[in-house]
């Protein structure tokens, strides 16, 4: 119904996809100054529907598929924890209604993909721990490779999961040792191509980030990781445990937040997390430990990754927490000693889950300083012409000029102009427009140009009789003169 509208999707995830499809290969796009060298397995997933359908109409369904996969993995882990099939299904469903996950699923971000693959890997490792079947290590290796190649923070997940897999495999005898080699090889084959490309092209596998070890520069790069980390939206100067507690505390009374959005910076794990999941995780962990359940491995992995990764306060980076929390809630609803306690957990889980769903669904909040769109207005857009569903018409005014740009036009974009936030919409939904970065050379004949007021390009085009001003404001658009 809606054209892609999420911030990172428009700045780089989908820009990379469109650029690849126009180039016909996977070389780094010149249209993303920040992120062209990031690992890009998620972008490959987004490429699949666009490549075959010839349009981005279905690109928003990709992460929905991974949300379902995450739910299946949670159900599998719940079964390994000893829960009945219907209870395991309920645990999977509870994860899917986590507000941060629910709001992000229809966008072209990568966090749902990361958590789904990490949970699948954890499920496969638990199954290997139980069955000792080496095939489970193959599945774990594939899932770890997907995580490693999807996002920089996936390195943390991949490292922890690989170490866990190796420990399990080495304890499993000769077959396990053979399986360990295959397991690591598969993870590297699927996850490392982006790092290998960067190493070949830039001499640094994690370009653009510099790497130092014990004060010694291992790899040179123009940025340090600390330069690009987003500070916490609350208590930014406090120690991380304070940031985490204050972020989680927002979910105690989520109606004060308004609607949950796809990159929710305050709270986001939903009211179920602080009210029910967190308290029940304690007795659940004790119960698993008493039974020496292999599912305990997953809790350990999730806790370790949450502690090691940089964004402990940010819901979209900690979606594995409600995954184990969902299993704890279902355990509480089925295994607590008193019937009234079990009924209380069931009723509370239902009410809190519904509150989370309502708060993440009653409107679409595009963030990025644009106004939200009410759910009823979104439904009313079914069947509306494409022009009425564009990001310029619905969310970002500065892109409204695209309604007048021909489908086969060339658009030159001034990437260093700060008010120009997004490149992707310039391609058009069927990627029929050619989009080029502005350079010091001559502009292509008949091109449209997007820049910002006061930029050298803006000053030059104002004097150029070959162009006319087509859009005023902080963002300046020039059309070819008739």
């Amino acid at each position: 119904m809606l054209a892609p509208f999420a911030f990172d999707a428009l700045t780089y995830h989908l820009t990379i996809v469109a650029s690849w499809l126009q180039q016909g290969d996977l070389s780094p796009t010149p249209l993303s100054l920040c992120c062209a060298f990031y690992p890009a397995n998620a972008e490959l997933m987004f490429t699949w529907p666009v490549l075959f359908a010839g349009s981005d109409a279905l690109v928003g369904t990709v992460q929905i598929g991974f949300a379902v996969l995450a739910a299946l993995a949670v159900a599998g882990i719940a079964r390994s924890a000893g829960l009945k099939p219907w209870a395991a299904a309920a645990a999977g469903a509870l994860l899917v209604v986590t507000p941060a996950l629910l709001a992000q699923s229809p966008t072209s971000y990568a966090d749902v993909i990361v958590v789904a693959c990490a949970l699948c890997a954890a499920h496969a490792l638990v199954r290997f721990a139980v069955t000792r079947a080496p095939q489970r290590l193959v599945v774990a290796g594939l899932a770890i490779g997907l995580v490693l190649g999807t996002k920089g923070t996936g390195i943390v997940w991949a490292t922890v999961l690989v170490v866990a897999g190796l420990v399990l495999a080495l304890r499993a005898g000769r077959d396990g040792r053979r399986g360990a080699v295959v397991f690591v090889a598969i993870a590297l084959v699927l996850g490392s191509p982006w790092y290998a490309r960067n190493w070949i092209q830039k001499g640094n596998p994690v370009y653009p980030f510099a790497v130092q070890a014990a004060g010694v520069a291992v790899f040179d790069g123009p940025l340090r990781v600390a330069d690009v980390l987003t500070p916490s939206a609350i208590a930014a100067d406090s120690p991380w445990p304070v940031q985490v507690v204050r972020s989680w505390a927002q979910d105690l009374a989520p109606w004060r937040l308004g609607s949950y959005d796809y990159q929710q910076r305050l709270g986001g794990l939903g009211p179920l997390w602080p009210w029910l999941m967190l308290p029940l995780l304690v007795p659940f962990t004790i119960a698993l430990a008493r039974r020496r359940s292999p599912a305990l491995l997953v809790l350990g992995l999730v806790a370790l990754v949450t502690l090691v990764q940089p964004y402990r306060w940010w819901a979209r980076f900690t979606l594995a927490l409600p995954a184990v929390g969902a299993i704890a809630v279902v355990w509480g609803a089925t295994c607590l000693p008193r019937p009234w306690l079990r009924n209380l957990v069931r009723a509370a889980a239902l009410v809190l889950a519904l509150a989370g769903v309502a708060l993440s669904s009653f409107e679409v909040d595009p963030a990025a300083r644009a106004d939200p769109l009410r759910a009823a207005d979104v439904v009313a857009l079914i069947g509306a012409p494409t022009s009425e569903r564009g990001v310029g018409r619905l969310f970002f005014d500065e892109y409204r000029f695209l309604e007048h740009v021909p489908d086969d036009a060339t658009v030159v974009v001034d990437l260093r102009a700060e008010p120009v936030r997004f490149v992707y919409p310039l391609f058009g939904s069927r990627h029929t427009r050619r989009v080029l970065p502005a350079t010091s050379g001559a502009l292509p004949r008949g091109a449209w140009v997007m820049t910002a007021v006061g930029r050298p390009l803006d000053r030059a085009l104002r004097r150029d009789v070959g162009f006319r001003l087509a859009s005023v404001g902080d963002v300046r658009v020039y059309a070819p003169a008739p």
Partner: protein
Amino acid sequence: MIVVGVAQLLLACALLAVAAGATSVLLRPDSGIDASVTFGVVAAAGVVATLLLCGFAGELRPAPALGVVALWAIASAALARRAGLVPRRSRLLGSCSSRSCWRRSPSTR
């Protein structure tokens, strides 16, 4: 144009489903849920591997990608058939409905 695109996407997804399904059977999942997770992971890995192969070869177009997925589907289906693992309901679904299956796999019994 739209019809061709949708038909192409459906064909690609059908081939992917066959390829991922046959590969999942070769990986001998131990229950219905495990089969679903295995299928999802293999399908996602297949999408990534196919597009990496085509993209790094400079052939990121529908036809080469369809060709790669078709080859994978044929090869994995043939392997599954040769190994006598043509999917049966008893293997893929419901073979682990009792709680004991979640503790020990059929292969370790």
